[in-house]
């Protein structure tokens, strides 16, 4: 194709594919933890108590305005430097993460801020009527959240959840900056070894695009499976 030699890249196909899988893995775990953070923050932000809502709002507004790469550098370079000098050895060891866990933690913190906003919109969209219906049945606040708000909201937030997953997946490309061998790292390494710029970046681009649109297609399928609507 295009008069280019594609043999070398074909022989290294497993490396590229594992890079892709690693990115998906980190994005998925990051999304899961981010959802927990996002849910807690969303409920805190919609709380009547200012001591809960104010820090929640601050977290969302602050983190959404930071570059993900800065968060990754902070976790990977900054925290260990500071922890080693300021904290006892065993506590410091807990805070020092390897590359992959740094990316997962970074995605969770970063994605958590976006997910909090998505969940907050979801909570607000459920509306008072359902909450009051739950209260009239004698459910507690936690029970209302668990059995009424969350299931109803799940349907409305699903598309945004999917978009966040795709964004986080694309953001895993930044992991190359701390030498995590995901797809972008593999591609750049391949390029420096072989000088096959065009082949390598074409393959990487196609893999990213196909994966992103495949995730989107799966999510649209899932959305259609949920038949009830609010």
């Amino acid at each position, binding site marked *: 194709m295009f008069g280019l030699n594609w043999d070398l890249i074909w022989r290294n196909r497993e490396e590229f594919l594992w890079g892709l899988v690693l990115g998906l893995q980190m994005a998925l775990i990051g999304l899961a933890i981010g959802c927990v953070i996002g849910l807690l923050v969303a409920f805190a932000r919609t709380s009547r108590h200012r001591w809960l809502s104010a820090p929640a709002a601050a977290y969302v507004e*602050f983190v*959404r*305005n*930071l*570059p*993900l*790469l*800065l968060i990754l*550098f*902070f976790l990977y*370079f*900054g*925290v260990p*430097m*500071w922890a080693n000098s*300021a904290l006892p050895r065993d506590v410091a060891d807990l805070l020092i993460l390897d590359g992959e866990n740094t990316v997962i933690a970074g995605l969770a913190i970063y994605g958590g801020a976006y997910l909090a906003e998505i969940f907050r919109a979801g909570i607000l969209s459920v509306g008072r009527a359902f909450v009051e219906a739950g209260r009239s049945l004698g459910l507690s606040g936690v029970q209302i959240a668990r059995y009424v708000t969350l299931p109803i909201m799940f349907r409305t937030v699903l598309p945004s959840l999917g978009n966040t997953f795709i964004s986080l997946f*694309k*953001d*895993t*490309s*930044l992991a*190359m*900056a701390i030498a995590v061998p995901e797809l*972008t790292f593999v*591609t*750049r390494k391949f*390029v420096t070894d072989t*000088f096959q*710029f*065009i082949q390598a*970046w074409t393959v*990487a*681009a196609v893999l*990213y*695009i196909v994966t*992103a*649109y495949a995730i989107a297609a799966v999510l649209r399928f899932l959305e259609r499976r949920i038949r009830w609507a609010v």
Partner: protein
Amino acid sequence: MASIIDELPLLLQGVVATLQISMLVVVAGSIVGVFGGLGLLFGPIWLRAPLRGYVDVVRGLPLLVTIFIIYYVPPAFDIDISGFAAVVVALSIFAGAHISEIVRGGVASVAKGQSDAAKALGLTFWPRIWSVVLPQALPSIIPPWTNTAIEMVKGSSLAYLVSVSELLFQTYKVVGRTGAAMEIYIAAALLYFAINFAVSRFGAWLERRVRYAL
């Protein structure tokens, strides 16, 4: 502590570079986006199809991959491109695709009767778009446009990876020189926050200005 304050000018140099990149990109991306969005809506099929391809491909790619493609591929054809230029071009391509989609959506949301009324007065396409349709699309275009601008400020940090000494690059360097990791990273975070807070305030101000009585 004194050593950190001594290093502040280095951080501010980084801020200047970050602002330079961001502003260039937002201007270029907005120009591409306005014409891209109008092309997606009103263009003939030979224009619409490649525009659709451009927008969908770029929106499916990680920004970093777009930067690397622009940075690494032209030299393979003996075209020299600096890290700074590569970042500005790649981010503009990225912003242009996103803003194209924003403009397309905003313009499509303007009631068809408005275009009819302008046609009935005898206005041709461009005056109709500039004077009647776009002003009404702006209130729905500006909020997502502001978000794209913030994404570009954040995205400019990727310039670090092609050795452009913007804010993150300088942060990394100053941490290495002083060893004051916590303080410097927090200072950098506050600087990014301040820039983006200003961008979102500016966006809110613009939105208020273009929002006529509805």
